[in-house]
C-alpha cells in the first residue's frame, strides 16, 4: 500500500473511533403543557343570560402550545332555585361526559361512547382515524356511521352525532353543539363545561358558562280531520289493502320547537309511541271492544323539550273590539262511531241483500216487457231460490219514501245485489234530476255506502240496464268497484262515416256470449215487446280495468246493419275478484234472460263472489 493510502486509512479509522467515544448531553424531559379551552359567544362574567327556550347553541375552541387537540369532552349540570331565589348548590342532574373527536369522517362527526373515559380512549381512536390510508375509513364502516350505528374502532364504541336520519343533530362539527337543557322549573340554572383534550390525553381546565333556561309551554294540538260526527265508519280488526283504518289527522303548534311528535289512543287503550306522523289510522284492535259503536279518539303532542300537551288547542275569545276577554280550550279528542260488520266476524252465516233500484212502473201500466216492482221481485225470487239461495236473502224496493240502505243495514249482509233492470224512456232508473228526492242514481251517499261496504270486504253483484246513463254511476262506481269504464264504441259506417256510440243502437242486443264459466244466452222473446224487434237498447260497452275480466260479450240482432256488426262482441259483463272483495257486473238486465240461463248466470256470479 502506498503512503498516500496509509494516511487515508488512518484518518478514517481515527474518525470512527472518535465518533464512537463521543457522549451526548442528556435529553431534557419537558412537562406537557395542558391545552387551553375557550367558549365563544358567552356573556360577560357579571351577567347571566336567560335563553328564549331550553335549546342553546354553544361553540368552543382549544389550543395546545406543545401538541395538538384531538377532541373535546363536555357535560352540564342543572340546578334548581330555592324559594328565596338563591340557587341550590347541589345540582339535581349532572349529565355524563360526552366526547367528540376533533376529526371528521367525510361530513360525519365522531363521538365516543360515554362509558369510555376520554382521557383513556380518545387518543387511541383519534390516532387510528387520523392515520388512515388515503382511501379513508372502510366503506362499510362509513355507511354504518352514516346510518347512526355504533361501530368499534380499536375496540372502542364510536358513533356519529349527525347521521343521515337525524334532522337536528347535536354536533355538525367538533367545535360546536346545539343542546336542549332540561327545564322542568319555571327558571332553570345550567352550568356547561367543556375541556379540550390534547395528544397526550391531557385536558387542562374547563371552560364554563352559566345561564338560565326557561320552562316552555307544551304545544297545542288540534284534530284537523276525523269521521263526520253523525257518520258511522266501517272497521275491521286489521288493515287490508282496501281498509287502512279510520283516519284522523292532527297538527300541533309550538313556536319554540323545531320538532313535534304525536301520540294517540282510542277509548281506554294505551297511548301509541310518539312519532312525527300527523295521521293515525284506527282499526278494531285499538278499541276496547271492536263491536262497540261509540268511541273516543285522543291525541297529544310533545315538543323537542319534552313538554307534552294534554289540554289541546287554546283559542282566544275576543269581544267586538278585538280585545281578548278569555280563553277557550278545545280538547284534542273526538267522539266517533263505528260498525264492525257482522259478515267479517267469526261464525257469520252468509246472507244477501237484494236492492231493487229499478225504475218503478205502476201496476196499472206494467207489462211483461215493462214489469212492475212486484213482477220484478217475483221473477228474482224464483231464480234466487233456484240458484240455491232460498231463505238466505232479503229483498228491498227503493222508492221515494224508502232511503237507500245505510252502513248499519248492509253490514249484516255478505253480498249486496243491486238490480236496475227497468228504465224509463230516457234509460234512467228514475224520473227527474239526479239530486231529486226520488233519485236512484248510485252517487253521493249511496256510492259512499257501497264503496266502504266493498272496501271492508262486502261483495257486490249488479244487474242493470242503462248502467252508463246514471249520472255519477259512471265515475267512481265504474273505476273503483266495477273495474271497467264505459267504453264508447266507434263504428265505421260506409262509405266514409265514423260514429261514436255511447250506448247500443235501438232494438239491437239479442243476447250475449259468455266467458269464464258464464253461459251464453238470447233474451227471452216472450218478455221483449214486439216493437223491440227482438233486441234491447240502453246497453253500454265496458273496458276492463286492472284485474277486471270480461265475462259477457254483446250479441247483436243485426237490425242495424253496419252498426250492429260494429257492436258485436263488445264487452258488457265484468268480473272483479280482488283480495278483499269481489264484484260481478252484468251490464244487461237479467230479467229478460230465460229462467234456466238466468239461474245459471246467477249461480256462477254467486260462486264468483263466494256467496255460494
Amino acid at each position: 500500500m502506498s503512503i498516500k493510502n496509509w494516511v487515508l486509512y488512518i484518518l478514517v479509522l481515527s474518525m470512527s473511533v472518535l465518533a464512537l467515544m463521543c457522549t451526548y448531553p442528556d435529553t431534557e424531559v419537558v412537562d406537557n403543557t395542558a391545552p387551553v379551552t375557550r367558549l365563544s359567544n358567552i356573556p360577560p362574567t357579571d351577567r347571566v343570560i336567560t335563553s328564549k327556550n331550553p335549546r342553546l347553541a354553544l361553540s368552543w375552541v382549544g389550543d395546545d402550545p406543545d401538541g395538538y387537540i384531538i377532541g373535546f369532552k363536555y357535560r352540564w349540570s342543572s340546578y334548581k332555585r330555592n324559594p328565596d331565589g338563591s340557587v341550590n348548590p347541589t345540582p339535581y342532574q349532572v349529565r355524563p361526559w360526552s366526547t367528540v373527536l376533533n376529526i371528521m369522517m367525510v361530513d360525519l362527526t365522531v363521538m365516543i361512547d360515554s362509558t369510555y373515559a376520554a382521557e383513556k380512549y380518545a387518543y387511541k381512536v383519534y390516532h387510528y382515524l387520523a392515520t388512515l390510508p388515503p382511501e379513508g375509513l372502510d366503506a362499510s364502516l362509513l355507511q354504518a356511521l352514516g346510518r347512526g350505528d355504533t361501530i368499534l374502532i380499536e375496540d372502542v364504541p364510536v358513533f356519529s352525532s349527525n347521521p343521515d336520519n337525524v334532522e337536528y343533530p347535536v354536533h355538525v362539527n367538533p367545535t360546536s353543539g346545539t343542546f336542549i337543557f332540561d327545564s322542568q322549573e319555571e327558571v332553570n340554572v345550567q352550568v356547561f363545561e367543556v375541556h379540550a383534550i390534547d395528544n397526550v390525553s391531557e385536558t387542562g381546565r374547563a371552560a364554563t358558562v352559566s345561564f338560565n333556561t326557561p320552562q316552555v309551554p307544551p304545544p297545542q294540538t288540534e284534530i284537523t280531520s276525523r269521521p263526520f260526527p253523525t257518520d258511522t265508519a266501517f272497521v275491521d280488526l286489521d288493515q287490508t289493502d282496501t281498509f287502512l283504518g279510520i283516519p284522523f289527522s292532527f297538527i300541533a303548534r309550538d313556536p319554540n320547537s323545531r320538532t313535534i311528535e304525536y301520540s294517540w289512543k282510542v277509548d281506554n287503550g294505551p297511548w301509541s309511541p310518539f312519532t312525527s306522523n300527523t295521521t293515525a289510522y284506527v282499526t278494531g284492535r285499538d278499541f276496547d271492544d271492536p263491536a262497540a259503536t261509540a268511541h273516543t279518539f285522543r291525541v297529544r303532542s310533545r315538543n323537542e323539550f319534552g313538554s307534552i300537551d294534554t289540554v289541546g288547542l287554546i283559542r282566544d275569545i275576543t269581544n267586538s273590539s278585538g280585545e281578548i276577554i278569555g280563553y277557550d280550550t278545545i280538547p284534542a279528542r273526538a267522539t266517533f262511531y263505528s260498525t264492525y260488520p257482522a259478515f267479517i266476524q267469526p261464525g257469520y252465516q252468509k246472507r244477501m241483500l237484494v236492492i231493487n233500484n229499478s225504475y218503478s212502473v205502476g201496476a196499472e201500466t206494467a207489462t211483461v216487457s215493462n214489469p212492475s216492482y212486484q213482477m220484478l221481485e217475483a221473477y228474482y225470487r224464483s231464480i234466487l231460490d233456484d240458484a240455491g239461495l232460498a231463505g238466505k236473502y232479503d229483498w228491498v224496493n227503493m222508492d221515494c219514501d224508502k232511503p237507500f240502505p245505510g252502513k248499519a243495514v248492509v253490514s249484516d249482509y255478505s253480498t249486496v245485489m243491486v238490480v236496475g233492470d227497468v228504465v224509463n224512456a230516457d234509460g234512467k232508473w228514475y224520473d227527474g234530476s239526479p239530486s231529486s228526492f226520488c233519485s236512484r242514481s248510485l252517487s253521493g251517499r249511496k256510492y259512499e255506502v257501497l264503496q266502504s261496504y266493498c272496501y271492508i270486504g262486502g261483495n257486490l253483484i249488479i244487474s242493470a240496464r242503462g248502467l252508463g246513463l246514471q249520472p255519477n254511476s259512471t265515475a267512481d262506481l265504474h273505476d273503483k268497484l266495477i273495474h271497467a269504464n264505459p267504453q264508447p264504441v266507434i263504428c265505421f259506417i260506409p262509405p266514409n262515416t265514423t260514429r261514436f256510440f255511447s250506448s247500443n243502437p235501438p232494438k239491437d242486443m239479442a243476447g250475449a256470449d259468455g266467458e269464464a264459466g258464464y253461459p251464453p244466452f238470447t233474451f227471452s222473446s216472450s218478455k221483449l215487446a214486439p216493437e223491440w224487434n227482438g233486441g234491447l237498447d240502453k246497453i253500454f260497452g265496458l273496458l276492463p280495468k286492472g284485474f277486471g275480466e270480461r265475462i259477457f260479450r254483446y250479441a247483436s240482432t243485426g237490425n242495424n246493419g253496419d252498426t250492429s256488426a260494429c257492436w258485436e262482441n263488445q264487452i258488457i259483463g265484468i268480473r272483479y275478484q280482488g283480495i278483499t272483495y269481489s264484484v260481478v257486473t252484468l251490464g244487461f238486465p237479467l230479467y229478460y234472460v230465460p229462467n234456466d240461463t238466468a239461474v245459471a248466470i246467477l249461480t256462477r256470479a254467486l260462486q264468483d263472489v263466494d256467496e255460494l
Partner: protein
Amino acid sequence: MKSIHLGALSAPVLVFLPLFVLLNFSCDNPEYVSPDPGVIEIRFKTVPGHIEFNPLNSFLLKVSDVQAIRFDDARVTVYEDVKAIGRTPNQYDVLSVRARDSSLIIGQYFVPPADYKSFSLSFEPGTEVILDGYRHIPVVRGWSGTPGVRAVFERPFEIRSGDTTRITLSYLLDNSLVKGAENYYFLLQNAFYISSIR
C-alpha cells in the same frame, strides 16, 4: 498514464459476446400452454304459481348484466350467448313456456376455468303484468329508489376447461308477484334460488 489499444474487431466482439452469453445462458424458457376456456350457462326457470303459463300472460324482467365472480373477486361478464360480443339489456318473459321448461337462457359465455364463488344478476322488474292478453295490471316494486337491483347468488361452482357448466336459477312466482287490490307487488324476499348446477 499508460493506455491500452484494442484491435479493429474488438468493439463488436465486446458488444455481442456478452449479449450472446446472456441470451443463451441466462434466459429461462419453461414449457407453458394456456388452458381452454369453459362455458357458463345460466338458465332461468319460473316455478309455477297462481298465474298460468299462457301466451296471453306475460311479465317481463329486464336483465342488464350477468357476472360470474371468482374466489379472488375477479369478475367475468357473461353475455347472452357464446357468439355475442357485448352484453345488452334483454327482456325475458317469466311467464313464457320457455321459463316454465327451464329452457330460457339468460347468460351463456366463455369464462376462464377456475373455481367461482357466486354470480350476480342486475335486473329490473317490468311495470305491468298482462293477463289474458288484455288485462294490464300495474306492478308496484317492494322497494323505493332506483327500479333496478343487483342480486348476488352465493353458491360455489367450478368451470372446467372445455366443459359447459349449467346453472339453473329458479324464480318463485308466488313469493315474488303478490296480488294487491289494484296491482301486483314485486317482492325480492325468497323470490330466487339456485335449483341446480351441472
